[in-house]
């Protein structure tokens, strides 16, 4: 596969490490959320046959975490964003 890195352009998927569902960005606050919320956050994921937003890490590159929108059936990649931008857009700060 080839991932179009927002900064570095087309890069071979071999340079990346895969993590999983981009929902991992939405970590609950440990001081207010309980075990149930963290359990859902960590273990309950959708497993779609189709569009999937997922985290990839450019380990053999610039160390950016990316959110890649990929079709799990065809492997077509329709969008690649910096995970930091996605996190900010979802209201994450400090």
């Amino acid at each position: 596969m080839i991932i179009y890195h927002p900064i570095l352009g087309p890069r071979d998927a071999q340079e990346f490490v895969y993590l999983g569902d981009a929902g991992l960005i939405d970590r609950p606050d440990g001081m207010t959320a309980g075990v149930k919320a963290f359990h859902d956050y960590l273990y309950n994921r959708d497993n779609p046959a189709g569009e999937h937003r997922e985290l990839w890490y450019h380990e053999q590159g610039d160390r950016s975490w990316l959110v890649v929108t990929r079709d799990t059936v065809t492997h077509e990649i329709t969008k690649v964003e910096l995970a930091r931008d996605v996190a900010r857009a979802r209201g994450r700060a400090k």
Partner: protein
Amino acid sequence: MTQSHRIVGGQIDRTKTLSFTFDGLPYQGHPGDTLASALLANGVRLMGRSFKYHRPRGPISSGSEEPNALVELRSGGRQEPNTRATVAELYDGLTANSQNRWPSLRFDAMGINDKLSTFFAAGFYYKTFMWPKSFWEKLYEPIIRRAAGLGSVTREEDPDDYDKGFLHCDLLVIGAGPTGLMAALTAGRAGKRVILTDEDFRMGGRLNAETFAVGDAPGADWAAATVAELLVGAFDHGIYSAVERVSDHLPTPAAGKPRQILWRLYTGKAILAGGATERPIAFENNDRPGIMIAGALRAYANRWGVKVGERVAVFTNNDDGLRTAKDLQAKGVDVVAVIDSRQGGDLLPGIRHLQGAEVIDTAGKLGLTSITIRHANGRSETVAVDALGVSGGWNPNVNIHSHHRSRPVYDASIAAFVPGQDGPPGLLVAGAAAGQMSTHDALKTGRDAALAALDLGTAPDLPQAEGAPIRITPLWHVAHGKGRAWIDQQNDVTVKDVKLAKQENFTSVEHLKRYTTLGMATDQGKTGNVIGLAIMAELTGRSIPETGTTIYRPPYTPVALGALAGRSRGTEFKPFRLTPSHQWAKEQGAVFVEVGNWLRTQWVPKAGETEWRQSVDREVLATRKSVGICDVTTLGKIDIQGTDAGAFLDRVYANTFSTLAVGKCRYGLMLREDGIVFDDGTTARMGENEYVMTTTTANAVTVFRHLEFCRQCLWPEMDVQLISTTEAWAQFSVAGPNARNLLAKIVDQDISDTAFPYMGAGNITVGGGLRARLFRISFSGELAYEIAVPTRYGDALLREMLAKGAEFDPIIYGTEALGVMRIEKGHVAGGELNGQSTALNMGLGKMVSKKKDSIGMVLSQREGLTDENGYRLVGVKPVDLHAKLTAGSHFLEKGAAPVAANDVGWLTSKVYSPHLGCDIALGYLKAGDKKIGQRMRIVNLLAGLDTEVEIISPHMFDPEGERLRG
């Protein structure tokens, strides 16, 4: 031997003669020959024995679809089993041997299997060798594997190199027949970067095997030979892989050249011009040497100047079979009869053309001697022939188009499957691979595909070429008699086996494949699959489209494991890293151990030490007595800077770091989000906004990745920057009562206990100005420091410490002594940090602060992880001090039966402690913290151990920690 079957013409260089051997006998051929064509030229038809029945077999094809003529090529380390003689390019000195026969190819003792064929039908193994269960692995399978099989693997190392390479292009053309050449020509003339691949060593595809012209020139001349590559498969996003056979046509690769290169091809567009493969027709005893697909007879005559037999017949259901008969006759071969299953149409002039007839049986023990024909009127006739060409039609080579699971669709007009709609994006199909069977259509669709793929405006003119339509009336198998009619010759699958599969309700093609093995092994059913599924369709009353094909997967043809491995073998299997003290350690004859990618010193033997324990015990005792030095460069080091660095560390560590004073360090425990311990290490605060974290050697990369995830994805507004400095600093642990005395001779600053107290950290200089870092931390339990200098000074620092500190008799200790000392102190490491254990299990539960949010804090409080009677880290020593312990042994109460239900824990790490004079161990024991002082057993059924032990505190040496604060 003479080349008795050589006829005129062909694309071989008759001015040169190549010598080769097959099964030890010498033969001759010419450049341009394959091993198969050269053997056939010498009158050799018998080239192998079949997989199951050990039937005598010869080649049925002239290409990569070959199921029968598999040989062991070359010898020694270069021996290559299961090589198709039909694609192996002949070279001078080639040696090949037949396989799956004993004692010889002509007399094979296992031929008895053929007589017992009733017992060897599909499903035989599954039904027969089921009981008793334990017999399968030990008895049945080895016997079956010996009796049924392909070639043997050499036990020697392959002496040749294999490389990997990467190429980029605008257009990848797969197949260099008329379609592919026209596509490449079209794109190339438009200035595009084109990669043309073909599995043959001569470009041109079928043009090399035909007599007709392209434009004014013979087809073969129109195609020029260039490179030989075989395309392996289509992957995602325009990535394809291909193997270039750089040196397979040579006895040994030229100096510095690899045998093969595995190319990864990146392309915007690709055109599949893979042509088509002729399929046979199944009839009784259709597997004798001398019986081939008709196009192969034609190819051997036209391309290689070889007649397969003296008296030849052709059995066909389509016009292409007639072309074979005409070409052979034109070459002067005696064509005895053409058996045409169709009725009507023009009769071939000057040839005995029998319409509405079928071949129903054959004879000939080691090669064809006669065929039996059933005429249209039902009369039978036996005709003496020594070669028979069979044409059941042509299957487009759709494989690569289907590597993304696209299902091919059935085209009744050519009685074959053509590519479906949903192939890999950017891949167009043209020519015979798309069902366009004539040369004219091949050229036209090849050109048009290139125009469409690259959006080109101008097209080269098409040369004139034949445009004859396919006329075919499907005939899959001849219904006659009770004998066996082969579909898949490689796996010995017959029409009967398909009937049996149907009878047992394995009617889906995927089940048919698994039940009968149809289409497995090296040829992947290129000649047999469609016949098999068509017969299944006939038996079940379903149509061929309803029956469908199995899934196609890469590789298209077999790939040597060497090509997939490339340079990644032996010491180059993965990169390895050397510590700054490696050169010194090597000079001392140190023993090294792989730790991740690192080679670390395991111990450093001294003269007279014959056993590793002598060295390790000495290193431990010397360190605890005076001073020892250990290279700890391999630990991960991460510089963490920014105004939020402290707050960031509070989030990623279970304990608190923002409160750490500048110039101090602290042990940190890092959890995964699921509450399990991830890693540990000390982190020092070097400045207000600057920390240096250390990680374990094993987790250096994954911790860094995790920290970047936390920084970028969880808290993107934190002002914190990370950089790995593992490689930047050479770091040594200096431990023992004389550690400070030794370092005082090196370090420029005052490092007295007051100036540099326990858990102190700071920037210093050594040797009169070299920048360095000092940390007063201890893994060994001794008064200890870790000193770091820029990596390139590591070797010099080590030598300087040994020289300046000579009066203290410093020793270098390795990972074994390190392990002994940390276990004596009850520090956790690999065996305890096993990815399943919590801080509570390790006796570190209080380190997890609930006053702040940190990764893993919430889930570490889960019910299942907070059981007060759960596993706890304990120390263990045997009651009988001479008894041995082994890591991995399990805890049992005294008197409990050694069964899993009574298992209450296990030993994680074990060493011999020279201070305590016995084996000691760490382990996880249920409610272990309440069992200190009690006696238990440790049981290891594998090692036959059942030993009484005492449960003790994990802090087995200097439990009060007086030494390290000294």
